[in-house]
């Protein structure tokens, strides 16, 4: 197969060359200048947009290393950016503001939610994706429909119910609640994951005498890990940043998750309002999201592809 790529596309590497798969009659008719304009536009637009999205975030990180005085200075100067200090973080993690506990609460809740969501979604995905039982489509439909009941709308009765069950002011309560919110999406992803595995694999395991759970844990698990990672990642990020539910279900500030402890920082609950602490706290909340997303991006995008774009 002879590929007749123009010099411009070759310069952009194999990815571009592949995109322009040879198509009889396309290359000669297309002026080279047009694709160069397109590429210039692409680079310019991309870089400009990158600045728009990245600069505010980088700015906030820089801010978190400035003393409060510099942050609130009404005559800002460039020299403020050179007053590098880790004081905000030190105060947060050792001083009165003590968000260590909040970080710990958030971690426990987010990890718990991620694990529980992934486990429940995997079991349900197995059931819906592989087994034929009466009412399967109805029950699956039920789960999909609950996705459309926004928890924001039923927060009042939910509070009373959680309270009656002893699940308010409880990290376990938050885990159960967040898992439910993330469950429909996870079930959807996991059902698709099971449907993409050939039945022969299970049949072989069955012939070898493995039961349902044994097959799931020993034989199918490696094939399911990407889907489980997707469900867990979404659940973790959602739980880590969730606000309204935590605000409603927690009143004891020793149980506060990180977003709620930021309210305390904002209100100056630990003395005078200190914007240095607030921005540092927000950066602490931001970092795990960025790290997890960048590291596990393929699962994130896979999730959107398998969940959403399937119309």
């Amino acid at each position, binding site marked *: 197969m002879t590929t007749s790529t123009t010099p411009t596309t070759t310069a952009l590497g194999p990815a571009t060359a592949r995109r322009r798969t040879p198509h009889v009659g396309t290359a000669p008719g297309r002026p080279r200048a047009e694709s160069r304009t397109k590429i210039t536009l692409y680079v310019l637009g991309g870089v400009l947009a990158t600045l728009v999205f990245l600069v505010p975030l980088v700015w906030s990180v820089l801010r978190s290393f400035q003393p409060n005085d510099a*942050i609130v200075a009404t005559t800002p100067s460039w020299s403020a950016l050179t007053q590098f200090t880790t004081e905000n973080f030190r105060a947060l993690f050792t001083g009165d503001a003590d968000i260590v506990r909040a970080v710990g609460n958030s971690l426990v809740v987010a990890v718990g939610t991620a694990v529980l969501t992934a486990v429940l979604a995997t079991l*349900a995905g*197995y059931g819906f994706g592989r087994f034929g039982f009466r009412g399967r489509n109805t029950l699956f439909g039920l789960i999909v429909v*609950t996705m459309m009941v926004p928890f*924001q709308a039923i927060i009042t009765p939910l509070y009373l119910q959680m309270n009656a069950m002893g699940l308010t002011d409880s990290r376990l309560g938050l885990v159960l609640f967040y898992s*439910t919110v993330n469950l429909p999406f996870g079930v959807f992803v996991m059902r698709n994951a099971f449907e993409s595995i050939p039945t022969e694999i299970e049949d072989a395991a*069955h012939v070898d005498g493995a039961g349902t759970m044994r097959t799931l844990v020993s034989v199918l698990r490696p094939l399911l890990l990407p889907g489980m990672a997707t469900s867990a990642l979404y659940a973790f990020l*959602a739980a880590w*940043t969730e*606000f309204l539910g935590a605000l409603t279900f927690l009143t004891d500030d020793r149980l506060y998750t990180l977003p709620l402890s930021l309210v305390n920082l904002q209100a100056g609950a630990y003395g005078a309002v200190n914007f240095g602490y607030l921005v540092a706290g927000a950066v602490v909340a931001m970092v795990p999201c960025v790290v997890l997303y960048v590291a596990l991006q393929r699962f994130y995008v896979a999730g959107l592809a398998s969940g959403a774009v399937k119309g």
Partner: protein
Amino acid sequence: MSAPGRAPVTAPTDAPVVTRSTGSGHDLTHPPRTGLLLTLPALAFVAVFVLVPLLFAVYMSFTNWPLIGSYEFIGFDNYAAIASDPVFWKSVGYTVLYTAIVTVPILVLGYVLAVVVRSNRRGSTLFRTVFFLPYVIGLTTLSFLMVLEAQPGSGAVNIVLKALGITDGTSAWLADGPLATGLICVMIVWAVSGLTMVLLMGGMQGISRDVYESAEIDGATWWQRERSITIPMLRPTIAMSLVISVIGSLLAFTQFYVLTRGGPSTDTQTVVMYVYQRGFVQLQLGAASALSIVLVVVIGLVTAVQFRLLREKD
């Protein structure tokens, strides 16, 4: 979670579940009862934390439920009170205004970003990562960061506007209804367009290249191709991302709670804030439940529109 959707972004599929030989019940590897058992835990969670509260809300909405103490049935009084409650209608008006302002910019910016990242050109993965970053960080954290950048004099918003000579840099963005609304709208468009981008990009990549190539042979310009191929073929995806973004906006809470607390007065109070206010500040749980039901119905209607738009594809 309360803004253009951290909510799970999944298209409700009305395509029937693929029926395999497993459906017959003769499949020894997949006994039906085991299948039902496997789904039970998930169903139990959904029943306990969604369906029961929903039914409970309907029940409560016909009572004058206080936080503590006994209650009595008051029929449709809560609903009647909502209909004539000026604060409720103000919050409805404000939420609709907010939704109306942000929806189109989110779609347009998301579309433009998707056009940038959809090709497999060098750097498109990096661009995609960066454009999606604010959405991943989430509105809660971004709202707290905005608190200090909106301060008169010292906030970045004022520094930039002053440097550009647009304002004198002393605007108190959060103390003024229209200013706060404008600021929050800009922040939201910036923060959530990445989601629309990813959704549309997925749809765009699903369109066969052949269609474009034949259009190119026919000499169609870029915009002609976009208008006559991409947009029509993308219609279901566009509809879905619109609905996700509209529902998210209608349920907005966090960014307003953190930045304005609904103020000044109730000028920037959204519907969900009002429900929260009635339920957990004024402790009128019956009234709050009635509001909840109204909200569920409205969101249900928006979703029904989504179903229709998606179905028209077939």
